[in-house]
């Protein structure tokens, strides 16, 4: 440890008799986005919940921002969670609250004043390009809009770490692409560290092959990396049967000879 933003050391976790994680170790460097892949039910969401301390491992250690959070109390975890933004699978917006109240949730809980909340919420919604939806209720939003509101909510408080749980699942390709571009912007311009859970190979391609820069007129542009040069800030983690099947950069991943990974990449 010492240099990672998130680190798992030999983490085991079972639900009853079902062994979900069977000795998982990996690390995410600051500023790095690690794409977590694996079949349904391999424990990808479980990994994210362990980072947040929503679940406790049976054994092993978990470090977040160089702190060993494994034995943290609930109040210590509450403080630690301020560093983390989580984008849940279906958005997990609070049904009874408007978009405004959802995005500003952290600030409302803290008792911030109305002006600060309004200003922050608008800024976050502008980032995900949804400022018009500020007064809507979650039930009025489409799937893609819900995820984007979920991202805006996760960004309040400028967390250094962002966890994405299948943010693109069930979305049409252009909307999925928009969400990946948000993740690219956060990675390259804000320097956040991320775990990005997905099972869409297209997301992996988008994240690994593009980077965000500031254009000539001060606007943000997403550009494709030159041929043969992969973005080192994106790495891969493949889970299978509760173990890490592969961890490494994009090239290691694409050139893997493992038959399971090759079917996953639709290479065979």
């Amino acid at each position, binding site marked *: 440890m010492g240099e990672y933003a998130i680190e798992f050391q030999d983490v085991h976790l079972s639900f009853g008799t079902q062994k979900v994680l069977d000795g998982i170790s990996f690390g995410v460097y600051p500023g790095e986005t690690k794409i977590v892949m694996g079949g349904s039910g391999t424990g990808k969401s479980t990994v994210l*919940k362990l980072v*947040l301390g*929503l679940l406790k491992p049976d054994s092993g250690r978990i470090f977040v921002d160089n702190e060993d959070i494994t034995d943290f109390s*609930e109040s210590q975890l*509450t403080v630690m*969670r*301020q560093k*983390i933004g*989580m984008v*849940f*699978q*279906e958005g*997990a*917006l*609070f*049904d009874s609250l408007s978009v405004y109240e959802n995005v500003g*949730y*952290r600030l409302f*809980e803290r*008792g911030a004043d109305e002006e600060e909340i309004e200003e922050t919420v608008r800024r976050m919604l502008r980032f995900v390009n949804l400022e018009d939806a500020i007064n809507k209720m979650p039930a009025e939003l489409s799937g893609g809009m819900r995820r984007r509101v979920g991202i805006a*909510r996760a960004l309040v408080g400028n967390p250094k770490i962002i966890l994405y749980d299948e943010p693109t699942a069930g979305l049409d390709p252009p909307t999925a692409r928009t969400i990946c571009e948000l993740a690219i912007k956060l990675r390259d311009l804000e320097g956040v560290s991320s775990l990005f859970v997905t099972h869409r190979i297209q997301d992996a391609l988008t994240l690994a092959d593009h980077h965000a820069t500031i254009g000539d007129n001060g606007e943000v542009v997403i550009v494709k990396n030159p041929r043969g040069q992969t973005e080192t800030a994106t790495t891969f983690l493949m889970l299978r049967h509760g173990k890490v099947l592969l961890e490494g950069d994009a090239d290691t991943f694409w050139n893997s000879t493992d038959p399971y990974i090759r079917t996953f990449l639709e290479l065979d």
Partner: protein
Amino acid sequence: MNLFLLLLVELQEATLLVWRAVRHPFRRPLYWRETVVQMDTIGFGTLPIVLLAGFFIGAVLALQTAGTLRSFGAQNYTGRLVATSLLRELGPVLTCILLAGRSGSGIAAELGAMCVSEQIDAMRALGTDPFRKLVRPRLIALMTMAPILTIFANVIGIVGGLVVAITFLQIPSSVYLASAREALNYDDLWGMFLKTGVFGLIVAIVGCRCGLRTRGGTVGVGQSTTTSVVVSIVLILVSDFFLTRLILTLSGTA
């Protein structure tokens, strides 16, 4: 043996739930708004049905007992019998069963839906303790609303009995009311508060616990809701027996 173990685990979980809801009573935020909203939905939401049920229970009590009392030449005691029955048993039990059916189930369904859509996890991820934000307001609301609603049920029940006494039984209202007033005594009153407090607690704990342990999507939410109603009603009836025994012992009438 397995069932016994399961029961113990549930008991432990329920105790833990209450503990996590009530500890740090003054740590901010205090969630007053949530508490008031819960009191409002639970109190005013259940009031109409409590009034309706209370009225007819009082009426039918008068109708049923007057015949028996008359054969002893004691039909002037109808008011007292109705009032005592309501105050000691029917008011608290009936009101809280209605609370379990209407509010307990609603709590289980709401928290259950929040659970399966990961809203509870999201809440924790955003630094809120769901036990303080969700469980505590419901606990407070049910424990305060159960006695208040019971008082409403008792009063309207006595009115129901009065209506029957005047129209069907030819008992003068002054006689009925004077007799009903005799039923009011200190022991029955604190007994009623004790019972309704405990029943309110039962409905709140069972509703919250069932909701928060929901798994398995929308089907799970339905199951949690049903379970919460059944378990609350059984627990209310069982604990009513033991509470009655306790109250009778303490008030020296046993």
